[in-house]
């Protein structure tokens, strides 16, 4: 999945499973992105 950041700052990554085992499914979500060069909290 690809997208373009529509603003600078935090982006939350959320997942919803369907048809998974009831105990929950381990996963690995790998995200490649570019951080800001300046820091503002």
């Amino acid at each position, binding site marked *: 999945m690809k997208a373009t950041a529509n603003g600078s700052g935090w982006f939350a990554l959320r997942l*919803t499973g369907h048809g998974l085992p009831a105990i929950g499914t381990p996963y690995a*979500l*790998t995200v490649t992105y570019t951080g800001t060069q300046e820091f503002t909290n």
Partner: protein
Amino acid sequence: MGVLLHAHYRLWGPHGQKIVMPAPVDKDTPNVPWWWDHLASQAADFQHAGFSAVMLPPVSKTASGAAPDADGYGLYDNYDIGSKDQFFSIPTRFGDSDRLRRMIAIMHACGLDVYADVVLHQYDGGNNGTYTYRGADGKTLNGRFPKHPSCFVGSPPRVPVDPVANPQGNFGFGDMTAYINSTPKGYMLNGAIDAGDWLTRTLNVDGYRIDDTKGMAVEAVRQFLDSKAMLGRFAVGEYFDANQSALHWWVWNSGMGGRCGVFDFTLHGTIQAMCNNSSRWWMGGLQNAGYIAIDPLNAVTFVENADTDLSFGENVMWNKMLGYALILTAEGYPSIYYKDYSTDPGCYGLKPLIDNLIWIHENLAFGATLTRWGNDPQVYVYERLGYPGLLVALNNDQGNNYQRTVQTSFGPNVQLHEYTGKHQDIWTDGQGRATFTIPRNVNGQSYLCFSRTGYGEAFSLNQRMTTQTFFGAADLDIGPAENDRAVQAGRIWCQQGTLIDATLKPDTAAGVRARESSPTFSMAWAKCWQAQNIRRAQWVGQ
């Protein structure tokens, strides 16, 4: 080769205790930023100054939680990077996991590598050698990589000490690990490798400092560094030994095979003697000094670090700039101690002087070293022979300037500029010799750096992307995917207008596979304060 910033330091507290960098959890400093944020806010400045990498303190939770003495070396839980409520704190002394990932992404965006400090030698905070950790629900003690007494050195049920690199130099701190002798066989080493792989991938670190390698089995360190995500990444070991031959043995003949460099404690000892004794130390002793003299590509040079700084007998008390002038013009990979560099309160504030030397290191200091004046009690002169060439002169005499004439490789009648601003331009004579006057030693600022004229380019930012993996599982700090319920995998800190590329996979390495023939995940990302802008995609996996 670059210049490394060792971003870790200690201060003396009001009651004589050691404090690890100020933190907002301390009652006296509620307004200071978390360390990860403080580093992130300086990332662009570090890159503009010419640094190429930043070495972090250990990032995992220690038995001290976020307390003033939580320096990172009392490792408790490999999988808690400021992400589990353990030892009375979710954040470590340096901040929480979101701040840590963000800081690394900002460093990368500024073109800087980030090195993790890996503690393998000891754990602290267990119950008689038993370590259980909280899992993703924050309550169940099902956390990954639990430990038991036979993981550690001692009387049964503990195990005998490993065949460590230097038994006489192996000192106990907390529960000393046994990677070779632990039972069941391979449990500790495989667990450490898996934890290192997880750490590397979830943070996207580019290299490692390996703590206390004297007290580690060489075989364990080598296997760790040659496994999984650690394979091929930069590594430097803390082999605390001033003996040049001992460092060489560990790097090449112990079984490490050159896989890991070392901090140049030999040169540190020489620098300490040179700086602390001023005029009384014979400068000819710099000739062939340090591990750099025999293996510069595996030597990380330093003037001070967080251990030596507050240890009388190990620290450099005066004339530090003479030491920095040496390591930033000599061969080897120089490491700058944050407290020496920074202008933060309580730090030594040498930034303006060190910045000049970093620029010289990155623009002028290349190639082999040739001593040009080496048999003198007060003056040492050497030349870096790679183009454009660099002629360096050091004087440790607090009372006198010295004029010297030395042969150079610049050639006849070449104009040379002095790049620290302490001397006017000079010309080599018809035989390529240079004559100059080295100022007397005032706080170590008695060094000259000559090279050809015309250099002055500033450093630019080279933006890099970051790739971080969020692992979700019941025994980690992030829970597994659940049916028909959105769970937050994590957060990332993005620059507007840049690409985000995400790949989602079931983590079969965790030992759980989806039972359904075609389970699906819905994945969404949302800018935290603009939830209406959620973009959706679906991934179907087996």
